[in-house]
């Protein structure tokens, strides 16, 4: 049975395959319960948010390169629309505004881009297709998980405006109390901070609905023959991520509520007594500010893996397909993801080495943190092993996947410096940290996502994205990215602290301004390059080359469905006979892939073994 049936291919705007019920426009494109549409909605939303977050970052970068200079373009526009008062005279960034810029940059990027693009966009789109289900287990819940994003976005937006545009949240994405608990502590610590916390909670609700759905779907709705160890690594990663999310998120939600009640109802969890903030009355109470840090990082460390594991899974699938080779060490790949997730729960304290917590805890967190580098290393070796002996053709997808591996190596290695507690005493809260997490979150995760967008785009819209534009986008982004973030390691070594509106008032940093200007120029290149992606995306929806069911000659179940799949996904119900990585199998002649659904004639029975031994 070859699943390649061009006759079944549908035109770009996929007519409903089943044809026996018409769906209204609203139900189909807006309040859709179809996992594919929800995935695409998530994807479009996160891409827009990527631009928003990116613009905020450019504001930060501008200030660091040319402190207190009037922002080009922005200041003129501000002038035109009556000059919002957050920008001081002459369109320059005030120090208050600077703290708001980096706070909202990180909040948008983490909560509205990275987390929803992985689980929300790709998780939704891929899970049912890759395991051979017709939809998610709870389609209505799935729809709600998308529509809870919008109140969150609105809350974040309101947090920018409730106090008349001069007081967005400004306590960093980590939002440490006491700064975030006392209204007088900073211009943005009033209602803005309350709205921010509400937004955070809503993002959490959205993610939680997603993860319940993913777990249930993956456990219950796999196609016949899809045993756990025949699942693509993408599915494993989504599954593990959903579990991480489900166990870690309640802690953040609880912490968020605690802070909310502390701010609005006068409860007391985080603020100790006797503080005099901003010449106000002394505080009363017996709270403990470190409690927030523990609760926050108990979620947010696992969350950094929530922001990475799905990309790891997707890159594994794309890479195997692109080099026409089985994944190297499938089971070690699964186990190392599980190990990362497990260890991820006991390393949160590495964000708190200098926080004043018990030094004995510092030692245990240091050892567990070192240990979490191990499964990360195993994964890197296995990706290199996967390419080893493969056939490499450099298209956009391959390029982004290789970049993922290369950038992840850097991010993992810089983690080792910081995991070493004494060295972290020096590096904590310097640009070394900023370099580290951009290498893992942008360098790894986002390059992985760029690859995934190009790879699964034909399944989403039935057309291919332009490879030439894709490669150009990759090249510019890669150069811009490394130019932006690699020098930040050096800034960190030079003791350049993060979150400084004007570092150059400190004599030991004066000479670092040219380097910051270089960084900002690279960041602008990188930012501008993203329009290539957006443009390619939009144009290709309408004019891209038509893709058949299986444009990449890949093995997974999703490639047996029409492109785009109709309602209910599969016209031929899939039955699974093997794992997804049987590329270049000697069992078939004349082609180098062997789909999961293909039943081979019994040639000594060898063909239908689950080919997943390590």
């Amino acid at each position: 049975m070859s699943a390649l049936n061009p006759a079944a291919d549908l035109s770009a705007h996929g007519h409903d395959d089943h044809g026996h019920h018409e769906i209204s426009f609203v139900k189909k494109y807006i309040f859709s319960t179809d996992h594919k549409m929800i995935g695409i909605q998530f994807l479009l939303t996160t891409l827009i948010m990527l631009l928003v977050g990116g613009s905020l970052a450019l504001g930060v970068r501008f200030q660091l390169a040319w402190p207190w200079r009037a922002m080009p373009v922005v200041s003129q526009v501000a002038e035109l629309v009556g000059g919002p008062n957050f920008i001081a005279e002459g369109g320059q960034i005030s120090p208050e505004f600077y703290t708001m810029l980096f706070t909202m940059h990180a909040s948008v990027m983490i909560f509205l881009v990275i987390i929803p693009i992985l689980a929300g966009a790709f998780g939704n789109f891929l899970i049912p297709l890759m395991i051979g289900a017709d939809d998610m287990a709870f389609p209505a819940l799935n729809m709600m998980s998308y529509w809870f994003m919008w109140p969150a976005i609105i809350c974040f937006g309101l947090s920018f405006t409730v106090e008349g545009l001069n007081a967005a949240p400004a306590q960093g994405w980590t939002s440490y109390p006491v700064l975030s608990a006392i209204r007088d502590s900073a211009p943005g610590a009033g209602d803005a901070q309350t709205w921010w916390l509400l937004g955070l909670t809503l993002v959490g609700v959205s993610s939680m609905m997603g993860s319940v759905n993913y777990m249930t779907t993956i456990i219950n709705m796999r196609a016949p023959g899809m045993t756990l160890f025949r699942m693509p690594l993408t599915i494993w990663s989504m599954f593990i991520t959903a579990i991480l999310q489900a166990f870690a998120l309640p802690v953040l939600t609880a912490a968020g509520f605690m802070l909310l009640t502390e701010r609005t109802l006068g409860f007391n969890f985080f603020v100790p007594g006797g503080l005099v903030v901003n010449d106000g009355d002394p505080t009363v109470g017996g709270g403990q500010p470190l409690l927030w840090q523990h609760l926050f990082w108990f979620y947010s460390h696992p969350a950094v893996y929530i922001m990475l594991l799905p990309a790891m899974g997707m890159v594994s699938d794309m890479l195997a397909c692109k080099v026409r080779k089985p994944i190297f060490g499938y089971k070690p790949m699964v186990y190392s993801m599980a190990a990362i997730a497990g260890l991820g729960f006991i390393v949160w304290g590495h964000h708190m080495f200098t926080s004043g917590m018990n030094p004995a805890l510092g030692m245990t967190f240091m050892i567990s943190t070192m240990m979490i580098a191990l499964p990360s290393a195993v994964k890197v070796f296995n990706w290199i092993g996967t390419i080893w002996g493969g056939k490499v053709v450099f298209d956009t997808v391959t390029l982004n996947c290789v970049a993922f591996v290369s950038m992840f190596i850097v991010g993992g290695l810089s983690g080792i410096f910081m995991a070493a507690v004494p060295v972290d005493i020096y590096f904590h809260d310097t640009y070394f940290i900023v370099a580290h997490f951009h290498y893992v979150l942008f360098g790894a995760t986002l390059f992985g996502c760029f690859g995934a967008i190009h790879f699964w785009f034909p399944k989403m819209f039935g057309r291919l994205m332009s490879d030439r534009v894709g490669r150009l986008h990759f090249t510019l982004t890669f150069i811009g990215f490394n130019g932006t973030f690699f020098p930040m390691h050096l800034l960190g070594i030079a003791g350049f602290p993060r979150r400084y509106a004007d570092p150059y008032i400190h004599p030991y940093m004066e000479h670092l301004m040219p380097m910051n200007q270089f960084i900002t120029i690279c960041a602008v290149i990188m930012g501008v390059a993203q329009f290539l992606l957006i443009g390619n995306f939009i144009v290709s929806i309408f004019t891209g080359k038509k893709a058949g069911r299986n444009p990449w000659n890949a093995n997974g179940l999703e490639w047996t469905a029409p492109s785009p799949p109709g309602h209910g996904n599969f016209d031929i119900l899939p039955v699974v006979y093997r794992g997804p990585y049987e590329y270049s199998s000697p069992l078939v002649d004349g082609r180098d892939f062997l789909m999961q659904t293909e039943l081979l004639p019994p040639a000594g029975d060898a063909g239908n073994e689950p080919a997943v031994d390590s």
Partner: protein
Amino acid sequence: MVNKFWPLFFMFWPILAIVSFVIAPSMDWWFPGPAMSKFGEQIDNLFYLILVIVAVTFVGTHVALGYVLWRGVDNRDTKAWFSHGSHNLEVLWSIAPAGILMFISLYQLDVWMQFRVKSHFPEGTTPIAEVTARQFEWRIRYAAPGKKLMTTPQPDDLYTVNDLHVPFGRPVSIRLRTMDVQHSFFVPELRVKQDAVPGTVIPVWFDTMRPGEYDLTCAELCGWGHYKMRGRVVAEKESGFQQYLLTLQAEQNFDGVTRPEHSGAQIAEYGIEDSQ
């Protein structure tokens, strides 16, 4: 050769990365000077040890990556190598990094204990001042010359702002507190950093090897003026330090009319040495 463009591309950037690290010290993109404290030297040594390990791994993995890509583009006609992996390799590349990581973790424990575990503080560490962070300045309280620093403020205590004087050449400690939100006491040249946590007093010790002025900055976001919490740590000779305290006292007690008398004899009498 054209088809080797991308493998070269992926091998080229690591070379740039390494070059940038090699030239960094001479371009002054490096530590703000060598560590000015014995404790800081230990941190630097650890840093360089890890740097070597990391650099070797970075080069190794990228050579491997470059190699497999390079070979991969040549692989045009034949099928790819049909292999699901190698158990032996998995074992090898799990155990080897595990050993190295374990080594790093255990090797550095001692430095950490010295820094934070009170019973491991160096002999003779003297509390010299109380540093209270506040939006956006460092308030400093010394005991009067010859007196012991008490946990509660005394009537004859001496106060300054953003200017911490310490005797050099021996470990001293400060009592770090904050009046309002979190801050972090960061002296890059001495490689010390410690958050100031509301509701807690944290003892922080450091030493200075040479007399001099070291920048003091804040490393924990504390509000819009975070960047401008600039102070300095002045390390000077024991006698200079005593003199400083006396001057401070004289200034503080100066009622605008009569100067309280002070003589050199008093300095000798009140050695801060025994204020432990």
